[in-house]
């Protein structure tokens, strides 16, 4: 949504806006030494491990880095599938 507003106001075409967005990504990876590739591997491992215990939809798993001041956070959003109750007897 904010992306849409930015486009509407022509903010995304300004070079300073692009510089800031590019820097945000670069700094997150610089600070953690975590490349986008490594993040993908991590995601696959997480999905495998969690799937062994609970039923999840691998396609819905979302992992991202977030900045909180000078601290970085790894945020994983893993939606669970509803439990299918088996009828006994």
């Amino acid at each position, binding site marked *: 949504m904010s992306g849409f507003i930015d486009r509407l106001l022509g903010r995304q075409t*300004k070079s*300073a806006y692009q*510089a*800031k967005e*590019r820097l945000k990504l670069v*700094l997150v990876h610089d600070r953690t030494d975590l490349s986008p590739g490594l993040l993908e591997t991590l995601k696959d491992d997480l999905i495998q491990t969690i799937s062994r215990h609970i039923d999840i939809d691998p396609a819905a798993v979302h992992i991202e880095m977030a900045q909180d001041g000078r601290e970085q956070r790894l945020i994983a959003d893993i939606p669970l599938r509803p439990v299918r109750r088996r009828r006994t007897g």
Partner: protein
Amino acid sequence: MTGKVVTVTSGKGGVGKTTATANIGAALASTGQKVVCIDADIGLRNLDVVLGLENRIVYDLVNIIEGSCRLRQAMIRDKRLPELFLIPAAQTRDKSAVSPSDMVRLCDELRPESDWILIDSPAGIERGFRNAVAPADIVLVITNPEISAVRDADRIIGLVEAEEKGPARLVINRIRPEMVRRGDMLTVEDVIELLAVELIGMVPDDENVLLSTNRGTPVVLDGKSKAGQAFRNISRRLQGEQVPFMSLEDEGGFLGRLTRFIRPGGS
């Protein structure tokens, strides 16, 4: 006296470390405080020419460390600002001639007889940087509103924290208000948000800096220069004064004011 050691560093070269060191030093000295500026960029010395003291060098930092001269002999006194001293870097040696503990010892010797010790760090994150930061009480990180300078500043801020010298304080140098207004230069707010550190100064891009460097007279001695004013403000903030950040907009005469009146917006 117990002098405070302020290290000026940046990671990236060419963002204005030496200019900042010379000018903050001169601004502090002009208010009567005793300031010793140390050029820690061994092999690529430049603080001497920016201060206009290059013709008076006899001994240098490496001579002091090696004991081939006394500390006093290598301190060049500025004739315009009698409270300002320079310890120049050696030009024909490299950074390995000095160790971080040498710098700590030198600053401990200078502290009792000065108010401020300013260290001009070399670019990079190697030995020269560690030498410059080892004795620091306060670290100033200089950057420009430009992608590579901000990225390197972020790296340096992290290293300063790792050396337990943080939090670093940020100086954003060479801001061009007209480009910021157009949306073609990162704003001060953008840079602070990205780096998440405290700002201690914002300095506009100012031709007078080059003019004063050409002459070897720090721009803070030029009462009319905006950059000079910005560096004077930094020196006051270092002393604990609350100084509001000045507007970088040049009033630009009648026409400038008129266009801004018609088309406000931008910051």
